[in-house]
């Protein structure tokens, strides 16, 4: 079986499994399982946004939660002011994308190296956290929406059918929407990465100087990748604000940023299915350990959340030291080794050594 066939088989498998989950879950599972799965799907979209910009674009962004939180807050604020969700949904995508574009302009056109890039994105996230956290007073409001500071914004109205205020989307509808959006994002990104644009950003990740000498401007391509990632994260944030009807500044927090990075590391950089698996697996694990509720929770959860850092920290250290490529690529390598084992053993003595 050639690589092309394997690729098509994988795509078909993802599609079938995705559609099966989407169709079967609400019919056979309890409502609270459906709710849990909804947030897994939303977070998986967030994981995909970082998988694109880090795994394929090679841009280490420690502040993906900034765009996520910005999307959630934008949706909440716009919703209180407009009461109809079509425009707020679009704003929640456009505004984080614009913010990503502005930040990306500073970083990529300043030709800041990888490591500093990580620190700057981290700093921006902290700025947002600090600023939003301190807006508790009634004097901080945008239109009809009070920002609420560390208390967050409760009671966010749910999404409705486009331009129809009287038809809000119910909990099951949210599940269909999130799962559908995740599948669309996955296949959309696969398409994007198979296009010329995708080839070029991977080329830039592998060797920026060479890509530049071949006539591609890495700054512009990185900026575009970063902006797409920001838009995706904002969209996930919008869905998340819908899911809990609540946002709070912890959505910008370091724990949230760390989680996104961990999903991608555990699943594997340079794959799309890896981060999705990593995201769902880690969230399921944390929930099973009773230690985690994704950010944006009240007092009760913040007490329990106190143990999540410990688990996440251990997972992060273990993967960096022991499985640096992540689960999916490592398993892929193992499978490849098993498949090719016999053939390679036969050919080893004869094969010419590859030149460096």
């Amino acid at each position, binding site marked *: 079986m050639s690589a092309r066939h394997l690729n098509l088989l994988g795509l078909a498998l993802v599609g079938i499994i995705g559609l099966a989950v989407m169709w079967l879950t609400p019919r056979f599972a309890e409502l609270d399982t459906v709710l849990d799965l909804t947030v897994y799907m939303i977070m998986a979209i967030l994981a995909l946004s970082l998988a694109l910009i880090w795994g394929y674009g090679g841009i280490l962004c420690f502040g993906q939660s900034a765009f996520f939180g910005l999307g959630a807050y934008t949706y909440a604020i716009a919703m209180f002011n407009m009461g109809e969700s079509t425009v707020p949904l679009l704003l929640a995508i456009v505004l984080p994308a614009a913010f990503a574009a502005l930040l990306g302009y500073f970083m990529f056109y*300043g*030709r800041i190296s990888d490591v500093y890039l990580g620190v700057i994105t981290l*700093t921006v996230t902290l700025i947002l956290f600090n600023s939003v956290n301190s807006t508790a007073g009634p004097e901080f409001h945008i239109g009809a929406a009070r920002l609420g500071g560390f208390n967050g914004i409760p009671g966010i109205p749910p999404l409705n059918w486009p331009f129809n205020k009287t038809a809000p989307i119910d909990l099951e509808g949210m599940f269909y929407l999130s799962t559908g959006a995740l599948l669309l994002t996955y296949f959309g990104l696969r398409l994007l990465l198979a296009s010329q644009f995708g080839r070029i950003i991977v080329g830039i990740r592998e060797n920026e100087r060479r890509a530049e000498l071949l006539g591609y401007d890495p700054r512009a391509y990185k900026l575009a990748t970063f902006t797409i990632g920001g838009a995706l994260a904002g969209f996930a944030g919008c869905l998340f604000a819908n899911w809990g009807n609540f946002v709070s500044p912890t959505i910008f927090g370091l724990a949230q940023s760390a989680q996104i990075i961990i999903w991608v590391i555990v699943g594997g950089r340079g794959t799309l299915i890896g981060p999705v698996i990593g995201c769902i697996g880690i969230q399921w694990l944390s929930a099973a350990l009773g230690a985690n509720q994704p950010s944006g929770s009240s007092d009760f959860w913040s007490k329990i959340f106190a*143990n999540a850092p410990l688990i996440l*920290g251990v997972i992060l*250290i273990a993967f*960096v030291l022991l499985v640096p490529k992540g689960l999916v690529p490592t398993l892929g390598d193992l499978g490849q080794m098993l498949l090719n084992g016999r053939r390679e053993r036969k050919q080893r003595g004869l094969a010419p050594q590859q030149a460096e």
Partner: protein
Amino acid sequence: MDLVALLAIQVLYAIASLALISVGLAIIFGMMRVINLAHGEFLMLGGYAAIVATSHGISIWLSMLVVAPIVVGIIGVVVERTIIRFLYGRMIDTMLATWGLSLLLVGLTTAIFGNTTVGISAPLGSIQIGAYRTSAYTLFVIAVAVVTLGAIFAVMRWTRLGLIARGTMQNANMAAALGVNPPRVYAVTFGVGAALSGLAGAVLAPVSGVFPTIGVAYVAKSFITVIGGGAAILSGTVSASALFGAINQIATFVTTPVFGEVALLAAAIVLIRLLPQGITGRFFRRGL
């Protein structure tokens, strides 16, 4: 006039505390090119070490200036031997592993000490400046910063240890060829950096109190100070602290403390855009 004097003291204090919390990180980053994202947690551990030692009856000065640096220094060496040394030359992986370490330490301290703020009252009372009163402890923090930076300068400039450290920093292979053992130098450096962080965390503990997630408040500020400062450890830290500390304190004075922090972070982003190599990449190049 009194107000000007008071403001001057506060600006100096902002600069001194920035320099204190950054210098440990600057040494680790400058010498080893390791970005230690668990830096904030080293400061936090310093604070806890001082508070625990004080509550066991050790004098507050001894626990701040001796116990805390030793405890955190030992933790630093252990971390270097168990995690960091496998990752030299892999900058991004070091960042990720130390981030994991940071989460781990936060989780551990929360489990041990609980998620509450503990504090020790600042010794030394207050002093009178004309119509205003300010805490004398502020002056003590400034003095500690000056002495610490002076000591680092003296060690780096005039001792054999400093010579070896600077040599390894410039060219590790050449130093190894001359009989220096770079892994040992790295372990010691990491320990010294951690010890200085522990000292800073302990000295600032009476001002801010200590809680498990306090590292977050420190880490961004110390990072941008180190990166804003650039490659030279001492002159970089001092110049960047002076710039950012002044901006922070003046913005705080004019508006609110939160906006002061935002101004500091925003100034840092602009500075890195203008001077990607940091201040010492352009000015004070021959500094230490």
